[in-house]
């Protein structure tokens, strides 16, 4: 079963007010040496046992639905399938 992880992040030039809010809270943890916090989404997808073209289909999902290319970038990681037990 192929497992795919898609990370979706706001483009660097888009303001991330959630990340800024987290950054603003850090001094209360006595953490003062952080320059920037950006928040994104992680999406885990499990394909069917016999799914083909997993990479291609993942790209369609990420590009057309998971990320809005106007404001977001995405990265696709395809997890290597575990070695079948003999």
């Amino acid at each position, binding site marked *: 079963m192929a497992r795919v992880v898609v990370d979706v992040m*706001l483009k660097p030039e*888009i*303001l991330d*007010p*959630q990340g800024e809010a987290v950054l603003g809270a850090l001094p209360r943890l006595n953490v003062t040496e952080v320059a920037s916090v950006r928040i994104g989404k992680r999406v885990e997808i499990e394909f069917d046992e016999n799914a083909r073209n997993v990479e291609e289909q993942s790209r369609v999902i990420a590009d057309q639905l*998971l990320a809005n290319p*106007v*404001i977001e970038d995405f990265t696709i990681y395809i997890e290597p399938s575990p070695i079948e037990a003999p």
Partner: protein
Amino acid sequence: MTARVGIVTFPGSLDDRDAARAVHLAGAEPVGLWHDDAALAGVDAVFLPGGFSYGDALRCGAIARFSQVMDAIAQAAERGMPVLGVCNGFQVLCESHLLPGALVRNAHLRYRNRPARLRVETDRTAWTRRFQAGAEVVFPAKHGEGRYVADEATLDELERSGRVVFRYLDNPNGSMRDIAGVANEAGNVVGLMPHPEHAVEALTGPSTDGLGVVASVLAHLSGAGEPQGANR
């Protein structure tokens, strides 16, 4: 014959009934459309109302974009049918790439719920031709994800081609260049965050300026020539 304005209900739409009432008060016939309708029931224009379609899952408007009725609306818009998206409807139009840009979380992260003063920047759209360019209107704004963003080149192009339709006078959400509403190139598709359909009666609205939006599309549909303010 009265113009028929289709109002789409997605799962999670909230303002469809107010939109229907506004269309009725302005003298047109509201026609209910459902998210999985494959055809548009012969309507002359389409109003995508506000709300939280599909619970705003993933991003506001991201799932509604793939509903069956949106295919029909995209085709009709291509042929010139007037389409208005308000609030979540605006988000759906941006997600569908019928309008440029995107709507993201308000810069201050708070839900904003108050009347918004706007300037109508152009009368050269199907939905604003009964206004004078430069007129001030007041429509209620109520949204958490209303900050309009686009890249600088797109913003410049929108300004240059007169496609910024509404601009905030008191920017409530951090929208780039105070943009509250934009149009497509042909001017038949318009989206804005504040709600003209909540500004149609003195009893419940901050103004009755919203009637002008429906009046505009009626004038457009009846082929009433140039926009009202064009012969300055």
